[in-house]
């Protein structure tokens, strides 16, 4: 609900005598309503205040109307912001959503009773239905309801006509939002009511503080990297992956969502005869990219076999299966791993330092999901620091990269000269290059279709 406080700040700013909006009198039939503004005034003010475009100002203004902070004078049931001369008014803080929420059934009953008493037949169909429902539900207080309604009507008769109309408009606007007519979206539908933020379920007792202290002690001791280094890291990462980000750079041969051609997915499926260039490039970005791609892993395995160190990757894969596989198979799998990779004289013995080996062998006596973690980590770093960089320099990888496919952009078009939009937004450099290309190709046909 903090959005309400923010909206209220906007509303208050709008009414600021110096920086706020210009208000004027609006004529409603024969009455003059003071302090009103037009829909266009609201939008213009929002554009200037927040430096946003008209579309966004309209969206923001609509929110203010939908939540009842501004209401229309003509067609009060239509809660939209019209960007024209239509008159609007600010809702009085008494009726602000944050002030009087949630409204009670009693309040609503009094309002409907007032409407009913004031003019017979003034209640709309849906209001009549609700009125009779309320009459049944809170029948025991009905005398009070009617009495209150009469009192309020009597008090309002003693006001000036203009004030009375204003009050009626304000009240009507309030109820249109808090008890919307059927078919109209209920803006105040908040789904689950969340309990108070700091839950009473968590007792703040000694145990709680003791565990907080322990957590904080450990957290305090951690190594912290300079923010400049971290920011640099993000810059480098997003630069490296920019060409691989279809939302930013599009994709070849074409975006299946736009062209309805699934060639992109076919070319990039798990196993293909020839992978795409972008895919093979990614294997060089980081070791996990290579390992998490089925084909990459296969290639790497081939390389390791040549180097007689394939047991490392086999071991790593077996450990992954223990980590993420079924609990019931853990004991069996750990046994297998021990026999094949760790036991003295094992067929695929892996070279782990003695400290890690001792710890692992001890852990195997009581096997669990994470028992191979340390050993797996050791072999992972061994491959990452040693075999991986050499693989990237090897002929095997270089050949793979050379024969990798760079898909041609599909030029399937229904209409000739219609340029298919490849992606959502080009980077500026690409835009000028493409424009130049298009000018050369499309000739003078002005029917060239989609543009950036």
């Amino acid at each position, binding site marked *: 609900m*903090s959005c309400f406080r923010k909206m209220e700040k906007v509303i208050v700013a709008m009414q600021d005598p110096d920086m706020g909006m210009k208000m004027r009198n609006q004529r409603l039939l024969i009455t003059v309503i003071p302090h009103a503004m037009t829909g266009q005034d609201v939008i213009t003010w929002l554009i200037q205040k927040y430096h946003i475009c008209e579309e966004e100002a309209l969206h923001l203004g609509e929110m203010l109307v939908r939540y009842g902070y501004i209401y229309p004078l003509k067609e009060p049931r239509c809660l939209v912001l019209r960007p024209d001369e239509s008159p609007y008014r600010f809702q009085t803080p008494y009726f602000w959503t944050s002030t009087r929420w949630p409204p009670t059934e009693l309040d609503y009953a009094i309002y409907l009773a007032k409407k009913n008493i004031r003019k017979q037949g003034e209640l709309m169909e849906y209001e009549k239905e609700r009125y009779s429902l309320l009459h049944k539900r809170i029948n025991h207080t009905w005398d009070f309801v009617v009495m209150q309604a009469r009192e309020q009507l009597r008090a309002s008769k003693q006001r000036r006509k203009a004030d009375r109309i204003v009050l009626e408009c304000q009240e009507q606007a309030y109820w249109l939002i808090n008890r919307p007519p059927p078919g109209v979206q209920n803006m105040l539908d908040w789904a689950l009511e969340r309990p108070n933020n700091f839950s009473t379920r968590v007792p703040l007792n000694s145990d709680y503080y003791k565990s907080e202290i322990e957590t904080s002690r450990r957290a305090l001791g951690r190594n*912290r990297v300079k923010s400049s280094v971290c920011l640099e890291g993000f810059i480098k990462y997003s630069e490296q992956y920019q060409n691989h980000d279809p939302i930013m750079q599009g994709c070849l041969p074409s975006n299946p969502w736009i062209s309805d051609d699934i060639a992109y997915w076919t070319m990039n499926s798990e196993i293909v005869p020839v992978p795409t260039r972008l895919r093979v490039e990614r294997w060089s970005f980081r070791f996990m990219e290579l390992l998490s791609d089925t084909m990459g892993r296969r290639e790497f395995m081939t390389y390791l076999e040549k180097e007689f160190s394939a047991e490392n990757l086999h071991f790593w894969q077996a450990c992954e299966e223990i980590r993420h596989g079924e609990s019931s198979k853990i004991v069996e799998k750990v046994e297998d791993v021990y026999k094949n990779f760790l036991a003295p004289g094992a067929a695929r013995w892996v070279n782990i330092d003695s400290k890690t080996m001792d710890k692992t062998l001890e852990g195997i006596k009581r096997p669990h999901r994470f028992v191979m973690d340390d050993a797996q980590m050791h072999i992972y770093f061994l491959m990452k620091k040693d075999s991986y960089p050499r693989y990237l320099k090897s002929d095997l990888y270089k050949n793979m990269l050379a024969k990798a496919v760079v898909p041609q952009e599909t030029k399937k078009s229904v209409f000739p000269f219609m340029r298919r939009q490849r992606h959502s937004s080009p980077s500026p450099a690409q835009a000028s290059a493409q424009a130049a290309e298009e000018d050369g190709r499309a000739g003078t046909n002005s029917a060239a279709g989609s543009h950036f």
Partner: protein
Amino acid sequence: MGEMEQLRKEAESLKDQITAARKAVQDSTLQEAAAGITVVGRIQMKTRKTLRGHLAKIYAMHWSTDSKLCVSASQDGKLIVWDSVTTNKVNAIPLKSSWVMTCAYAPSGNLVACGGLDNMCSIYNLKGKDGNVKVMRELAAHTGYLSCCRFISDTEIITSSGDCTCILWDIETGTQKTVFAGHQGDCMSLAVAPDFKFFISGACDFTAKLWDIREGTCRQTFGGHESDVNAIGFFPNGNAVITGSDDATCKLFDLRADQELITYQDSSIMCGVTSLAPSLSGRLILAGYDDFNVNIWDMLKAERVGVLAGHDNRVSCIGVSADGMACCTGSWDSFLKIWN
């Protein structure tokens, strides 16, 4: 001074020391670091597909790792698996409880999960022998509503709950393996790290916490938001956490610097963030808001570079497919839209 008062003071003092240690590594601001970079050009995405079929508010959606199938959960009591390319419904699973708040797709594609006000996480097997989709497990132990769930594999799933805890479950046996307690408010969302060793949770105590799955402990706590943290996600390289809150801002917390580095906010945005997802390169952050729009932020320049306006009600969930190709939004207007 009682024992508890002393403990409370000690806890406060440690927190202050952590704040000081964080300040000590603040040697650069985002403006300085990203000074040489130009803002991404305006991003204009169009709705390519609309998935129609739900009859009530959609509360959650999750992509499958194949980037074509996705699952959505709605308060009409259905879990629907969509082929988003053809817009066909692959499965329409009726739920025992219609008060569903979250859903998840297993990385293998074999299972989906959902849960909500029934306080349980129900696991469904999509690849059952006779072709029918049946409940495989019902994981019950939470004492509050299920706000989010994410699979680690076909055998493990993590859930977050309104009872202020998160739980790691063994799906096979249907039992809880680890309880992650420490939040002081309802846990609203969670995300698993790319290496599956950690996960993060956002809660109504305005903080996000990083948990070590194996140890069961909280490694880092990130504060700074002024209201409930509704949405949370990892930056693609796993080094940062992005959060979205009711205070209408998104924040990026770096795990190595152990602090907030960037805030994404604009004075014209007043409604809370309900969901978020980074693009594949991490350069863009797509965030869904209560005001029916999705705002696209340039992660490095902290500027808005696009808006997705097309829903007629709150955007409750958003996801970017694994291949980065498309973004899917789900809304209270009962529709899912695919954008790119």
